[in-house]
């Protein structure tokens, strides 16, 4: 099975390195989508079928937390797992991510092993598997 992954980050190099690390981790990606901020991300989310969103927190325009809020408010998008990527490590901020519905967070700087571990954890979530089944994607073999 292969997944559609949306990477949201205003930094072009960071989007590139996240893509590279995900590919190197062996995670099976059907297609990478990229957005430079939350507004661009929402447009893609409303046009494409996405399996996973990795979003930076600190972006101009709509930031990662605001994007997360929009995703979780939408009946059609709210079951998509969202992982927040952030340089900020204050406990209060991390609690805020989870309260808004983030499935996990990745702290920058990160290693390929950390990314791989987080993605494997997310793909093993029963709730995530149920969402795939509910949407009847026949290519997915659960």
């Amino acid at each position, binding site marked *: 099975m292969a997944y559609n992954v949306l990477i949201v980050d205003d*930094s072009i*190099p*960071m989007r590139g*390195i996240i893509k*590279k690390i995900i590919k190197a981790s062996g995670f099976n990606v059907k297609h990478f989508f990229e957005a430079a901020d939350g507004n661009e991300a929402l447009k893609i989310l409303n046009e494409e079928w996405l399996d996973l969103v990795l979003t930076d927190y*600190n972006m101009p325009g709509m930031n990662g937390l605001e994007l997360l809020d929009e995703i979780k408010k939408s009946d059609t998008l709210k079951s998509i797992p969202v992982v927040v990527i952030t*340089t900020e490590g*204050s406990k209060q901020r991390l609690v805020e991510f989870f309260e808004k519905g983030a499935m996990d967070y990745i702290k920058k700087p990160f*290693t390929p092993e950390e990314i791989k571990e987080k993605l494997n954890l997310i793909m093993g979530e029963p709730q995530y598997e149920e969402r795939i089944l509910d949407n009847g994607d026949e290519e997915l073999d659960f």
Partner: protein
Amino acid sequence: MKKESLITAMKNSISNVLETMFFLPLVFSDDVHKKDCWSGKTDQIMAARLDFDGPFSGYCVFYIPKKFALSMTADFMGRDAEGLSDAQINGTIMEITNMIAGNTFSFYDEQAVFNLNFPKLLRTDAFQEFFTDSDNEIFIAIDSLENRLAFQLAINP
């Protein structure tokens, strides 16, 4: 604000970011004064500034020779240096600034919330305007692979 704790947090953050994501060996050059940091060198220096607020407010600046920024970006992105765009090089410098600043505050006090603005590139002929003799400024020179980088944190009075 505890200055010694902040210096330790800055050094931990610099090591964390440059070693983890860029695999760079580092030495902190504590005896180098900022005004002499690049004296005798002809390299063009690039710099990015990030303003912050929280329990205290101010700004951070990351300085790097342009040639080194080019090779770091190429390594970071897994591409040849010749094919890189200015946007990619600038983006890498701004991302490093963002990561070092964010991690500095996490190391300094993980209970506190600091708000980071977006990094901005400084004009290459203007970055020395940010050098002051204020006690509220910390300047850390870093040597890596025969290149001199620096990270500065200034706190508003």
